[in-house]
């Protein structure tokens, strides 16, 4: 596919997702006071930093994927991430996708919890991640790659894939540390489809990132180098309990960049490249997020919590 077709399809897909955009805008207007974020650039990998307590982060992401043996797709998801405590963050995802020349679908939801067991900062900081996923087989957001997920799985037409409902529990151990301004993160992944006949599946994500400058400038500026964080992430599947290994698995390498604007917005961009024949050749991901402080306070007031 040439670049002109790629962008035409992208714009077409964006048009179809007006409802998602409206939902996002409504949430932003509904919210309270924007807060400046220092967000990591990763899209798949997690570092050990949790949402500030009482803050809500509203995020929108897109993944455009090339597909051999079927039409290309644009998958998209919204995330609502809330800091319950300084050691606990909870997050809800709403997923959807457009497969070009087929249909646009809502493909399910996810509920994720991240819990930090250690009180202090260490060289390596573990965070426990547990997620429940209620998604259709047509889900294409590729938020993680696990087991024997390969490109061919995504070529199944929407009409067929959408009949299969998956209920999965996904666990990750998020290991991450800061070294001389760099963040290094490694996330082993373990997934269990709640259908008893399905085996445990495994995967990984790892990433490294660093701000372009480690020292802040005195003036407020959009283009200051400290507002930009760049890095790279790699993720893929490691088979399942029946056939552990790299056979029939897919793997990706993706440069990542985030631009943390003083206004509270964060923009992310990540072109991803498949590393073997069973991976999508190209994934283009981007995201937009904004953090709002004081959301917890507002909810407490609404529901009559004591002062």
């Amino acid at each position, binding site marked *: 596919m040439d670049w002109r077709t790629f962008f035409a399809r992208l714009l077409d897909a964006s048009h179809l997702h007006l409802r998602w955009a409206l939902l996002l805008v409504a949430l932003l207007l509904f919210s309270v006071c924007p807060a400046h974020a220092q967000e990591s650039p990763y899209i798949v990998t997690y570092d050990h930093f949790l949402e500030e307590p009482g803050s809500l982060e509203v995020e929108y992401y897109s993944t455009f994927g090339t597909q051999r043996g079927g039409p290309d797709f644009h998958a998209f998801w919204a995330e609502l991430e809330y800091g319950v405590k*300084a050691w606990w963050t909870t997050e809800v995802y709403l997923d959807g996708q457009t497969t070009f020349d087929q249909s646009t679908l809502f493909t399910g939801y996810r509920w994720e919890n991240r819990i930090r067991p250690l009180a202090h900062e260490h060289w390596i900081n573990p965070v426990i991640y547990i997620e429940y996923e209620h998604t259709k087989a047509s889900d294409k957001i590729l938020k993680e790659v696990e087991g024997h997920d390969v490109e061919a799985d995504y070529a199944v037409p929407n009409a067929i894939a959408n009949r299969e409902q998956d209920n999965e529990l996904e666990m990750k151990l998020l290991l991450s540390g800061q070294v001389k301004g760099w963040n290094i993160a490694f996330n082993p992944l373990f997934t269990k489809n709640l259908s008893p006949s399905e085996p445990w599946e495994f995967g990984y994500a790892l990433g490294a990132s660093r701000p372009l400058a480690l*020292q802040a*400038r*005195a003036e407020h500026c959009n283009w200051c180098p*400290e507002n930009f964080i760049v890095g790279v992430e790699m993720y893929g599947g490691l088979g399942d309990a029946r056939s552990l290994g790299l056979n029939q698995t897919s793997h990706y390498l993706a440069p990542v960049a985030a631009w943390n604007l003083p206004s509270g917005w964060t923009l992310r961009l990540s072109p991803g490249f498949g590393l073997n024949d069973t991976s999508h050749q190209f994934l283009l991901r981007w995201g937009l997020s904004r953090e709002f402080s*004081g959301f917890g306070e507002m909810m*407490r007031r609404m529901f009559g*919590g*004591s002062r």
Partner: protein
Amino acid sequence: MSRAEGRPVGTALLLFLAACGLALAASVAGAQSDGDASSKRFTEALATAPERARARQNPMERDPDAVAAGGKLFEQHCAECHGQKANGTRRGPSLLGKAMQQAPPGAIFWVLTNGVVRHGMPVWSKLPEPERWQIVAFLKSFQLPAERKDADSGTSSDGAPARGAAQDNASGPSVSSQQQNE
């Protein structure tokens, strides 16, 4: 995997998620921590900084832009809990109290890096080390009234030259007598 193997783990995890849901609801509806308690915990956290951390000097101390840059970072990351003037909100204690102002820069840096995670303050090691030191420089630029008086006359309370004038330009708030009593 057999049916018997798959179920207990799945059930346990689902129960865990259900517990998370209940705890979340309780947290949203629950009471806020009161200001005095959070102030006390913050003071305790400063006191528990290891000796090696306390002994660290601020490498940004001589940087003329450090206070202003730290002020910008404070506004972006800290003010939502500690207040625009660092005088505290319902979510976080005042940073203008005596304990804070008398704490060595290394102890403040340590608390900033490690947070007070069990009591609401997240770790801030996601900010690069020089930025955390810039915030420390900003926080240490606040003056207790006695120091301010000495600064006006050109000496500090221990007879050394006062640090005041340059920091006044960085719009660092001074400590009121009421805030000192925290």
